[in-house]
């Protein structure tokens, strides 16, 4: 590969992570299509069940995820510039948005369950718990990934930008999936 081509096109982070991300996007896409097929069969029931959810809370969690993505994107740029302390702070900021997201989501689940809306309360709530649950599991893995990035940035002998890029790619995927879940589960009327 020539130097010119190298600067013109570059895969950020580990290629293996991209294979995983693309596979996971395909996997979630199948879930989204299945959700839409079921929604199309009983739109009134889905709409009635959906009214129990709070779009305002979903907006707040979406803003948290977008903010986390923004911070980790800045962390990648800081890491490239050799500003490791700044990259560390930004990554810690992303971790904080992830923890806050999970706390809000746990509160939302507890609220719904305490009002009798559980996995068994019809197709809409089955999909609600399934989609948000699988997403939350990905976010939990994301927190571990961010932990690896933080460890990398703290160790003067490490600080490899590729590790920060790989962690960021995973975290952005979690954000990307949520953008679709936000619309399908909370906003679509």
């Amino acid at each position, binding site marked *: 590969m020539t130097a010119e081509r190298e600067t013109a096109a570059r895969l*950020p982070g580990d290629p293996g992570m991209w294979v995983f991300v693309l596979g996971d996007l395909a996997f979630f896409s199948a879930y989204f299509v299945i959700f839409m097929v079921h929604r199309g069969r009983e739109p009134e029931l889905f709409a009635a069940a959906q009214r129990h959810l709070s779009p305002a809370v979903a907006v707040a969690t979406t803003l948290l995820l*977008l903010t986390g993505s923004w911070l980790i994107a800045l962390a990648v740029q800081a890491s490239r510039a050799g500003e490791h302390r700044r990259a560390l702070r930004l990554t810690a900021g992303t971790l904080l948005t992830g923890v806050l997201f999970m706390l809000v989501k746990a509160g939302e689940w507890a609220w719904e369950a305490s009002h009798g809306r559980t996995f068994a309360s019809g197709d809409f709530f089955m999909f609600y718990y399934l989609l948000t649950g699988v997403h939350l599991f990905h976010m939990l893995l994301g927190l571990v990934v961010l932990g690896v990035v933080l460890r990398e940035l703290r160790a003067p002998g490490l600080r490899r930008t590729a590790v920060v890029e790989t962690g960021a790619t995973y975290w952005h995927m979690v954000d990307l999936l949520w953008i679709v879940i936000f619309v399908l589960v909370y906003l679509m009327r």
Partner: protein
Amino acid sequence: MNGTPGARTTRVWAALCAVTVLSWRLGTERTAGAAVTVAVLAIALVKARFVVRCFMEVQDAPAWLRRLTDVWLAALWTALVVLYLV
């Protein structure tokens, strides 16, 4: 692009937050119908593409990844809109 990469990333973040609030205000109107939902889906597509291109830096990635992510976005959103409307 104007300014540093960081400044652009921050502008994209601010725009993504703004359209998130906009899609919420659109989506919760009492008169919400098919046109509003399609608009909300369109906003989500724009958001997703900005996350892919800017945050995930696919804009600077090899052509195969740029194409593959665009094919994914086009295929998923076409399926969502068609399944919503039929």
